[in-house]
């Protein structure tokens, strides 16, 4: 390689190539802004506010960067390469940093605006410094015109490709890492373009390569073991993920709705959960419209509570959910909180974080008028126990004589024996049971069991003004077509846990 002297000016031929750098860094800069804006609106909800504040902070930080550029005096080429590497690191890792901050710290906003500030400042430094590097090669009017044109064109590319290509194909984490890699590549490339102004380049290039390697490793491992892998599993963008002491809680967002998964099993989709929760709650209330004390077992998402609160007679709701991480999320996560109408903060609601069965066994209190049992499906022994005759006996000890019970009892179509096993178990525990079902598109055909200690007729009038249930639709839920009709099953007892085996066998057919 030829070694031009340090004083020799760069060949004017390289100016167009440096203009390409402008295009690339402009795209990268906008991508980081879009990543931060999208991510914060996913995680915090209220996308108008999130985008506005992220853009505002980002642009003002760019202004700060531009101002600070005047304090950089010597060795501009060297500074430029360093700058590219800094942007590559902070911008490239911005999405993984923000997801981790959201999952593991309480100071997400501080981290968010800190990262946006840092990236904005660094990006704000880029263009002024590049222009000063080019100022001796290109006439001022051409320089201004060229740089700004390419800056805006780069922004156009980024703003079009981000929603159309990068988000759907790569997701937030890999998009930010990929553009970090691009920034670092611009740095490396610049060491060739600006070689005459750099002095010894070996160490600088090594640094570029090291940072590119780091980002590449991030890309590979993002797919291997963090959120992106789950995104492939969940098919949608993950906006919240937390490993609690009991389970993995994941929120995803896509196709105009968001979803909650526990240990990878869908619990609700915001698109159609109203069908599920109306069906869980209102048939029981139709038969006990004056219910005052309501027990909810499970249901930590607060959505059943939202429906219960539509009944003015209700004076107290006790919600027993195992996982404080779940009920905390239902209170604090903006999307979930918006969906449940901040129901868990209603003064009538008392949240107890305990295993519902242990709680029923070890506590006493005044009887409940309605009990809503909304556990995840019985795919482990620890969940299967919550569907045993012992559980329903313990539950009955806490019920008024005329109380109504509604139990989510998996799909009567896809897990027909499991569904009827739950009904048979409730009967074996001494309850009168009327099973019912409806279509919840994100689940399929879904089933419940309405029960009471006494004989009762199926409900005919439900609360007016619901989104799905009408009087006619309510009555229709209690009719079972032939492919879902009752089949004889064993009773699920603590000492046999037949339901766990039945359930695993039946659902295996569909996966």
């Amino acid at each position, binding site marked *: 390689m030829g070694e031009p002297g340090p004083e020799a000016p760069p060949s004017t031929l390289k100016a167009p190539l440096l203009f390409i750098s402008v295009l690339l860094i402009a795209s990268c800069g906008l991508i980081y802004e879009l990543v931060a804006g999208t991510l914060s609106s996913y995680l915090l909800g209220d996308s108008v506010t999130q985008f506005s504040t992220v853009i505002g902070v980002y642009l003002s930080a760019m202004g700060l960067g531009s101002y600070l550029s005047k304090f950089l005096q010597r060795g501009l080429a060297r500074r430029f390469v360093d700058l590219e590497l800094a942007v590559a690191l902070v911008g490239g890792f911005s999405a993984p940093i923000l997801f981790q901050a959201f999952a593991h710290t309480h100071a997400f906003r501080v981290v968010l605006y800190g990262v946006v500030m840092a990236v904005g400042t660094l990006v704000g430094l880029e263009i002024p410094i590049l222009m000063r590097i080019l100022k001796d090669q290109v006439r001022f009017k051409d320089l201004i015109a060229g740089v700004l044109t390419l800056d805006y064109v780069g922004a156009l590319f980024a703003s079009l490709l981000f929603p159309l290509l990068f988000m759907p194909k790569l997701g937030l984490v890999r998009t930010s890492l990929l553009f970090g890699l691009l920034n670092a590549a611009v740095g490396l490339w610049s060491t060739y373009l600006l070689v005459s102004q750099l002095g010894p380049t070996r160490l600088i290039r090594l640094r570029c390569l090291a940072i590119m390697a780091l980002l590449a490793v991030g890309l590979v491992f993002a797919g291997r073991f963090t959120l992106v892998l789950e995104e492939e599993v969940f098919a949608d963008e993950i906006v919240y993920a937390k490993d609690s002491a009991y389970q993995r809680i994941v929120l995803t967002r896509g196709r105009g709705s968001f979803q909650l998964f526990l240990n990878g099993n869908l619990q609700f989709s915001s698109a159609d959960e109203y069908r599920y929760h109306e069906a869980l709650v209102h048939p029981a209330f139709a038969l006990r419209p004056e219910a005052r004390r309501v027990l909810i077992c499970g249901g930590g998402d607060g959505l059943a509570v939202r429906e219960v609160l539509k009944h003015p007679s209700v004076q107290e709701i006790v919600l027993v959910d195992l996982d404080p991480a779940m009920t905390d999320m239902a209170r604090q996560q903006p999307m979930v909180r918006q969906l449940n109408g901040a129901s868990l903060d209603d003064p009538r609601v008392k949240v107890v974080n305990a*295993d519902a*069965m242990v709680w029923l066994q070890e506590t006493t209190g005044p009887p409940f008028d309605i009990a809503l049992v909304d556990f995840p499906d019985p795919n*482990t*022994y*620890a969940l299967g126990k919550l569907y045993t*005759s012992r559980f329903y*006996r313990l539950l009955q000890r806490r019920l008024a004589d005329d109380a109504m019970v509604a139990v989510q009892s998996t799909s009567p179509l896809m897990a027909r024996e499991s569904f009827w096993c739950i009904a048979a178990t409730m009967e074996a525990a001494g309850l009168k049971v009327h099973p019912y079902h409806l279509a919840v598109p994100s689940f399929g055909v879904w089933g419940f069991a309405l029960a009471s200690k006494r004989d009762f007729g199926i409900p005919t009038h439900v609360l007016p003004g619901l989104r799905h249930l009408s009087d006619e639709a309510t009555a229709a839920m209690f009719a079972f077509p032939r492919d879902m009709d009752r089949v004889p099953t064993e009773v699920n007892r603590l*000492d046999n*846990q037949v339901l766990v085996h039945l359930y695993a066998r039946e659902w295996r057919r569909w996966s």
Partner: protein
Amino acid sequence: MKRRDFLAAGALSAVSLACRRKPEFPFPGEIIGPDLPLGHWLRGGTFPEPEHFEPVSALVIGGGAAGLSAAWRLAGGGLDDFRVLELEREPGGTSRSDRNHVSAFPWAAHYLPVPDRGNHAVLRLLDECGVLHGFDAKGDPVFAEEATVRAPEERIFAFGQWWEGLYLRAGASPEDERQYHAFFREVDQWAAFRDAKGRPAFSIPRSRCSDAPEAVALDGLSFAAWLDARGFSSPRLRWLLDYACRDDYGSRLDTTSAWAGLFYFAARKQGPGEDSRPLLTWPEGNGFLINHLRRACGDRLRCGVMATAIHEAKDGLMVTAWDAVNQVRVGWKAQRVIFAGPQHVAKHVVEGLAAARPAAARIRNAPWMVANLTLRARPKEPTFPLAWDNVLRDSEALGYVAATHQSLQDYGPTVWTWYRPFAGPDCDLERTRLRSLDWPTCARMVMDDLRVAHPDLEGLVARLDVMRWGHAMVRPAPGLLWDPAFRALADPFGRIHFAHTELSGLALFEEAQDHGLRAAEEVLAASGRRGQSWR
């Protein structure tokens, strides 16, 4: 050479000194009784006569399952004027239990197979405890769901992972499977056996078993010999049967009588071809039953009191004892005594017994080590989840029982009870070995055993306590159980009656209870209180 040896020895001791500075395990614990010094004092001690002998109709010596059952029966028969003396600070013997901030837990015996409809005594007790809910249409008893072992009942660790059940099906050859089924067909045949009087060959308690020669003949050979004669060579099957012998008898296939080996399986069958009876259990194990019997006994139970001698007097039995709680000598004048302790203690206390009954010397008791591990959190379980009984295949120990399983607690702290019988052929040798173990050695044994299945266990242990049972369970050695001289040990010796599970040659709660009831009914009959037997 000598110099090098010396240096090596010096280096070794320096290393061991350095190691000793820091405790090996980051958790505390201790060795908890049984109160060996008090018991062994009996052998050599001489005791002056107490000044006062409190008159009682009956005195029960021993507050284990047999003694408390005898007391329960005496009270039930209207004889209220009795006392129960227990050497230890807590009653229960090998059904003892304890409780900490996490859970109640057993110190030894921890379950009961569901009794059949003919086992009136156990049904009566379970009814009193609120566990018997009634009888089904066929007349079979129905038990409380919460007292029946919750699924999953058992799992086994082998090939680096946990598997459901106790018999390892993974990797079993067709021949293994054939032998497994063939063995249980033999068990079924014995379960179906009825003698001329309609008695089964195997039933719990064993007093209901047939003495037909073809059944009794099984007692003449070892279980190993019986299996050999039938070509049962499958390593998996023999592992399972050996495990059963270690678990129930503290002995091995070759030191267990074939009668006892088959008893384990056939006596638990609901009927030929049917499943084994479910098991009843509680977080505190059989301590649940002991606590009920103890309440029934009330303040007639005296703990920390060791009977030291029984003498015949003209109008009763003069019993002298040492009250270790109050540090005084005490005495009772009893019309009848029920000696509900083991024979190796009886011979020191009952004058002339050893000479009159040499058969007692044939009884051998297996020593056991039991550890209770309090865990602040549970280890990761990537394979089959935690069961009630968790067995490691490649271990001298029997595995552990999770005390929180039955109380439905599936998350957070728990207590595990780890069992290890000292099943070598010579019980005395094994006992000496057990007694020599200090706490760090015991803790190392437990942790080394469990680490294989739970590499992350050590950091989760909050406490590890150890009980060294010198005489945990009688061994049903070939030829013992149906020896007339052995069976005659249960007969009264003058006005002294005997009750202990040892007298059955099978260490089971039901056997202890049966002997307790028999002895109490002998005493009731002698005092003119004849009535319907509870047995």
